[in-house]
């Protein structure tokens, strides 16, 4: 199975010119499977954390979105216990013009701007809604404990 030109070029660019705070490297035995790290954005409760993620490009990519999942535990209203992410561009708002880089930047942006009105982890979202300060404190604690 040959790899489409699009994936080869995207991979080259990701390695040659990585986005700030983001690394993505394909597995040697499966070039559609990427190990990803994202730095917690400054000013967010996830600051200074290094979060591991996995990213997989399905057969239909880029007509279908990549599959992305957090491997590091994170206390965030839009990311659940299993690391699944609630992000519109990973679902119905996907466009073939988006790329691995843009997807990962969006995930990073989600860390800066949690959206408890569209929750995936209801208990975390509730916490964020009712006691933002307290919830952010837990997020910071988890970041220290799991992501550093």
């Amino acid at each position: 199975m040959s790899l489409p030109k699009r994936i080869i070029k995207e991979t080259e660019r990701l390695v040659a010119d990585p986005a700030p705070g983001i690394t993505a490297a394909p597995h040697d035995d499966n070039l559609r499977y990427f190990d990803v790290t994202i730095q917690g954005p400054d000013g967010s409760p996830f600051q200074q954390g290094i979060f591991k993620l996995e990213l997989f490009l399905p057969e239909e990519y880029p007509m279908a979105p990549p599959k992305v999942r957090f491997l590091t535990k994170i206390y965030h209203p839009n990311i659940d216990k299993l690391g699944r992410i609630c992000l519109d561009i990973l679902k119905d708002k996907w466009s073939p013009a988006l790329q691995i880089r843009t997807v990962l930047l969006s995930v990073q942006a989600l860390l800066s701007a949690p959206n408890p009105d569209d929750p995936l982890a209801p208990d975390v979202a509730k916490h964020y809604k009712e006691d933002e300060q307290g919830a952010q404190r837990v997020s910071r604690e988890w970041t220290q404990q799991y992501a550093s």
Partner: protein
Amino acid sequence: MDMDDFKVAPKTARKAYELEYDSLSQAAIEKLMEQDVEHIRGIFGVDASTASLLLRHLAWNKERLIEQYMDHATKMLVAAGVSIPEPEPARPSRRPARKPAAKSPKSETFVCPICFDDAPDLAPLALDCTHAACSGCWAAYITSKIRDEAEHACRCMAEGCALVAPDAFVRAAVDPETYVRFQGLLVRHFVACTPALKFCPYPACTNTVACPAAASKASLASVVPIVSCGARGIAAPSPSSAGMSQSQELARQATGKEHKFCFGCIIDSDHRPVVCGVALLWLKKCRDDSETANWIKSNTKECGKCMSTIEKNGGCNHMTCKKCKHEFCWVCMGPWSEHGTAWYSCNRYDEKGGVDARDSQSKSRASLERYLHYYNRWANHEQSAKLALDLFAKTEKKMEEMQVTSALTWIEVQFMKKAVEEVDKCRMTLKWTYAMAYYLAKGNQKDLFEDNQRDLERAVEDLSELLESPIEPENIPTLRQKVTDKTVYVQKRNTIVLEDTADGFLEGRWKWNVPVDGFDQPENE
């Protein structure tokens, strides 16, 4: 004697349990769509492609389209994906990823922003928004939208661009087979948007039925809209087809079952005399025990708006129905819009649901006995109906025997076939009467109903027995007389059950022992 002898009443008079409906081919539906497009085109003075995109956007609701278009024509055109929005002064950007990388600097060679190919012979292709991509990517994209997602509105590939590819663009981009599929999707969308139309549920059938009398949900409490799409399916396989004459072969084809289905619900067979609501209740109850049902029950839910069955195979609880685009919460099934503003109550739902589930469990155990009584009879008729195929083959053999052993002609032995068909039909009715009886509230009405049911059942079993009896050359004339008489009688009994039940619905005579949509609440005993 010919087959007409068996008809109880002339076909012209419509019985209480029959409804008026029309069967339409795909071409006929396309014509209806064309008429609507033409209508809108005339009023708005736009081209046909624009008119159809506008209509599709507003779910073929012409009145609403005209109203909204008169108020905000530009807004409507943008929303329908016909034209590009006017550039706004400051575009609020939610994502930091808005870099112009996709559009490489307009150098002499074109690089497709999707596949990154830069072959010199690459043909850039774009909608009016000028977001170009190579023809190969467009073909792959539109094909995947149509084939994988069953989506007819193919928006521009560029992120955030809402322009929809017009039909001509789609036709040019994909192979003819996919375009046919695309046209099929458009027809299905139109039919789904029109309450008076329903698509034939039989596999590969492309016919549609128009039944305005059953278009509203309220009407389903008083009528059982069983319709036929006009097509016929595969005939019962005959083991002796090799030795058949041409006329026999033709007759066999003509016996192919009609695509009969219910216009009001998802049951793809005749469930008269019982109304959709009760029939569905019953089926759901019966299926609760089966493995598949258990899987569906634990892994899927129905969309609160269009009742499509949905499996959640990933992602968050914010669901968008593929078919009707209804947005809801997977946990509480409430509309998503309520979650955004007021804080949501999903966590509380579980507790209450748990209590309800426990309640209903103990109740169902108490009534299990009663249920089994009805279920066994229901299942028995269903089983017998399935065996009808065998009976049919056997009957055919008997018919051949009769031709050999007596002086009867092929036409004259048709009484056997007619009788088998009648038995099959009546078993269908009987089957559903048990579903009905299970839910009927106790009282005189139920007693009368069960009397009718008993009379029909007895007659059907008698006839069934006659059909199984051995044929002796000397008793053929009497057998023929008996079978013919019995068939007429069974037909009459069946009509009585169907008609009386249908009248009962129109008069509001039937009361249920459970709450049913469209009916009064049951009285507590």
